[in-house]
């Protein structure tokens, strides 16, 4: 069958918050490991329970600031989209967030957030002494606890050798600022494993790996995961993006569980393919701000929820038949 989305949230043992606090009841029994094949998978036997914790504020786990790098290896899988949506979701959940666009040559995070006209200074100007750090941070007017910092302007150049060190200084400076230390520092990593990647992962202590269910993206994701682990980043979770349930049903696309079996990483979220992504990019409004919310926006919200509590997915959703409404008006689409 086709796993598409996930809503279950179970506290990670490494979380500083006891699991009893987060989940009063033991909601999931860990299923026995078994080999999974797309055609023979039937989840009915396992006692799966879903807990949607929409009714409470997530409790922040880990030391602040949580420096999270969002990376993939392959380009075009949705790193920047994930950064924008998860970042704004975290801001809406009440946490202060600083998003850093570490893509030196090809920055796009400001476009997705609709802040492109407000970026006057970047980290390069801060390093050169043209402005202070607080002047380079662009505060989002929709959610004032969300700030954006771009590394450089398209034609400006970052001084050689400063890349990684500059971001470490930046994190240290944000820790000691007067407004208080931000809860999350999200770093949008450029594609590839070049100098930009090295720069972006330098200050991070956890990583979110964005991948799509195709073998090219999975190979790059596996390599990037290996490099992150070699660098000492052990808390790596993945987001499977652009999942198409219809193609999974026809066995033209790997399922989420197949992806997880290949990479061996904990799942932070599964994002379905959504045409609203392009519309939201055009508008400069991330998906999570859409009203009514879209399926992709809801999935990003849940991923952000899990990121706060350092949770991982323990169950994925399997799409069933659309809900039947029946009646005369359903014929007309009402």
């Amino acid at each position: 069958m086709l796993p598409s989305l996930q809503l279950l949230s179970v506290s990670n043992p490494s979380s500083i918050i006891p699991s009893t606090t987060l989940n009063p009841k033991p909601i999931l029994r860990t299923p026995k490991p078994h080999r999974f094949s797309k055609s023979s998978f039937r989840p009915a036997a396992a006692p799966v329970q879903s807990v949607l914790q929409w009714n409470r504020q997530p409790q922040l786990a880990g030391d602040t600031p949580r420096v999270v790098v969002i990376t993939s290896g392959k380009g075009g899988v949705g790193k920047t989209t994930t950064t924008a949506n998860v970042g704004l979701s975290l801001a809406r959940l009440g946490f202060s967030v600083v998003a850093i666009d570490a893509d030196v040559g090809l920055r796009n995070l400001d476009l997705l957030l609709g802040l492109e006209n407000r970026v006057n200074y970047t980290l390069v100007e801060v390093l050169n002494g043209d402005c202070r750090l607080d002047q380079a941070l662009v505060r989002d007017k929709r959610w004032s606890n969300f700030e954006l910092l771009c590394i450089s302007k398209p034609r400006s150049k970052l001084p050689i050798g400063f890349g990684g060190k500059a971001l470490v200084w930046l994190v240290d400076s944000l820790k000691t600022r007067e407004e208080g230390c931000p809860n999350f520092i999200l770093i949008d990593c450029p594609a590839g494993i070049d100098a930009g990647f090295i720069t972006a992962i330098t200050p991070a202590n956890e990583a979110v790996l964005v991948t799509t269910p195709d073998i090219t993206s999975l190979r790059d994701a596996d390599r990037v995961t290996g490099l992150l682990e070699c660098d000492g980043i052990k808390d790596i979770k993945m987001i499977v993006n652009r999942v198409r349930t219809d193609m999974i049903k026809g066995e033209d696309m790997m399922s989420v569980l197949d992806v997880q079996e290949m990479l061996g990483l904990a799942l932070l979220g599964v994002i379905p393919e959504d045409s609203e992504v392009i519309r939201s990019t055009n508008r400069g409004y991330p998906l999570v701000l859409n009203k009514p919310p879209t399926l992709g926006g809801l999935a990003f919200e849940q991923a952000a929820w899990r990121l706060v509590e350092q949770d991982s997915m323990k169950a994925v959703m399997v799409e069933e038949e659309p809900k039947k409404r029946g009646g005369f008006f359903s014929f007309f689409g009402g």
Partner: protein
Amino acid sequence: MLSPPSIWTLDCHLVSCQGPGALLGRLPDVRVNFGLRRSDNCGERLRRNFLLKLRASGDAVPSSGTDSLEHNAIEVEKGDPFGRFRGVISSLPPVVFVIKRNPGANFVIGFCIATSIFFIIGRLYSARKAVHDPPGSVADLVRRGQLRSDRRGISKPLKYEDPFNNPLVKVGKKNSTVEMCGKVYRMAPVTLTKEEQAVHRRRRSWAYQWKRPTMFLKESDTIPPDVDPDAVRWIPANHPFATTATDIAEDLAQTNVYQKHGVPFRIQAEHEALQRKLEALQREEKLDKLVIDRGNANDFERSLMFQEKSSDTEHSPPHESSKSDHSMKSSETDSSPEETQKS
């Protein structure tokens, strides 16, 4: 015994399938065959309805079909009544539905049809309007200045205020299903275990042995003596990191990042340099005023400034010369046009 509504049903099919002339010709025959009289009120009303509908639909039927129908009718009249009845049955299409006619049925049917038509039209109109004006369209790119075009509309900004009260997400009673955005999903467990994660981690640590570089060097540079060669990342000369000379010291850059208050370093440095320059200029002016006659002071200032300008353009870097030019221009604007012409 057949009743008039049954005849109405048969004639309805005639209307839909055959020509008006044939039907008009056959209707009295059929009635005669079944012993019906035209004096019946219902029959009379039916006939009027027939005539209306026949006029509406009669043009689409070819004349050949009408001729063959009349020919059949003539043949049927020649036989016995039972044969005529069989002929009528065979010439007519099969009966698909029967409308039992009640008083006021026409009004109800008409009302339903009109309501449906209005509903469908309204639905189509709203759908078309939604297609033509979707949020997040190219018009938003125009609004944001990304597209150079005329303004094609401004979409309303949407905000989703409450993340903790989402009516679009409903959990099933047994927590095994969830309904999101109108679709019901069943939950399936994740099969990855801690042991499998550890196996993957060991595999990757064996496959990808990597040490993060701490220094970027251009391909033509030499490695500094105190740097581990394994920690150097060689980058091509056209890389963004490599195309800029390190014109600022590392310590100074770090200080700039840590600066919380006050004027930024470069702004302050430029301001101080300009201040020094102005002070120097003012000192020179004072000195000159001590020596030179006041009557010739203006002329002397101008020649002195032009000399200074020529020396600045020869020796100073470009941005400083531009600033000195700016100060020159400002002083020139202070002077009168007559003086400019004199010089």
